[in-house]
């Protein structure tokens, strides 16, 4: 049911872990829905020097997180904020329809971490003006 790229990123996820004193941290999802993603960013001169993730979720959630961190690592925050869930799906060679929400979660986790960074540093990141961190209301996808 999963592509080889998904299975590869699930089996050998890149950038697993946490970053102490991260410059930005974002967490999305909730256990009720079966998916939580947490992204840690180390940022210097607007460049994402390091990124780590922790994920509670199914195979495609883990693979999506892993792929998302790969896609933004080394990129500027302005590039990173444009990363869409479509890009994640594409890079993974596709996701089953019922798993598309995992890629959405990955996009949101990245945005959430960038938002946290922007809040902390009082920066404005184009594309995040209207971003609201998930409210508490639970709506599983």
């Amino acid at each position, binding site marked *: 049911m999963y592509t080889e790229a998904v*299975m590869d990123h*699930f*089996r050998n*996820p890149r950038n*697993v872990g946490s970053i102490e004193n991260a410059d930005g941290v974002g*967490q999305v999802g*909730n*256990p*009720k*829905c*079966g*998916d*939580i*993603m*947490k992204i840690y960013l180390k940022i210097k001169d607007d460049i994402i020097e390091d990124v780590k993730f*922790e*994920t*509670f*979720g*199914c*195979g495609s*959630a*883990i693979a999506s997180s892993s792929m998302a961190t790969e896609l933004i690592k080394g990129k500027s925050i302005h590039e990173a904020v444009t990363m869409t869930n479509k890009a994640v799906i594409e890079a993974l060679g596709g996701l089953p329809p*019922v798993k598309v929400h995992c890629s959405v979660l990955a996009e949101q986790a990245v945005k959430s971490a960038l938002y946290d960074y922007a809040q902390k540093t009082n920066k404005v990141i184009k594309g995040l003006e209207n971003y609201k961190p998930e409210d508490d209301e639970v709506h*599983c*996808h």
Partner: protein
Amino acid sequence: MSRKVYLDNAATTRVKKEVIEEMNNYFDKFYGNPSSQLYELGRKSKEAVEKARRTIAEFLNADEKEIYFTAGGTEADNWALKGVAFANLNKGKNHIITSKIEHHAILNTCKYLEKFGVETTYLDVDKYGLVDLEQLKKAIKPETMLISIMFANNEIGTIQPIEEIGKIAKENKILFHVDGVQALGSVKIDVQKQNIDLLSMSAHKIGGPKGIGALYIRKGTRIDNFVHGGGQERGRRAGTEGVQNIVGFGKAVEIVKRDFDSYLERVTALRDRLIEGIQKNIPHVILNGHPTKRLANNVNFSYKYVEGESILLLLDMEGISASSGSACTSGSLDPSHVLLATGLDHGTAHGSIRFTLNEEITEEDIDYTIETMKKIIEKLRSMSPIKNDEDLKNS
């Protein structure tokens, strides 16, 4: 890595060698239609069908005229519920009592029957998955036509007090249907002693072929036919009989009967070895289902802070087949309705894994499974943002 351990026998079983051998005669050798009684080939098929029927009837302490073959457990469940409902609706009876942890074949049928005016009461279960007999008694109304309770649950293996429920049904003159799909072969079923009026069975859970089952219908039960057409099954279930499948079903029951005691002893010991091994080696686990009133082959744990689908995928890579109550594995939004009914929170329910054994499993398989699970859970927990119950609550 090359070890293969199939631990999803509640989903389906490998067809047994002896069963296949018996079936093999009924593809291109004795291929007649059992309705064709005027030539040899047809009679041979009919005899084979009736032999299987007798085997099954004897095993349940039923009469052979009370066994009707169906396409599986699901059709048997549909027939029992719809058949009783449609036969009784115009008698002012429109109420069914069942439980919250039934198979979807029951729950979705009850839901469908709403459109015909049928009302259903869904009994709660306790944290072990047991129904409450007092709640059952209170749920009975003059309009109640049927109580439908599964003998044993397919996810958590909990065995219900069927004989007691049967008594209550009888005292109240209400028909009693039992979904026996998971119990067949693991629990002694006696339709007389347990006062069962209708019993659903399925062959593929006991080493028989897929796509064949049966419904026991006590003589005199008011029930409509479900599949209409030709006069097969004494006019009660139309459609050319799946002779080869029926033969396989009969043989599977014959083997179950023959090996019953040794099977139970062997598998129960393995089950307990697996349960203890997991409890000893993996922290933060919750055993789902009843500690003792459970199917001999069922082991179901929730592994906190991790999600079931990931576990299954990693297990598959290590050659182990199992199943999970996680929503991710069902394509639905919610985790197992059974686990939720026992009071598990969603997050924990997502992290449940069911192992269901059979007689081919060895102690080495069990130990390998424990070892593998330990590694997998450690790996996934190390990747999880949730490290403890505090995290779970706050996230």
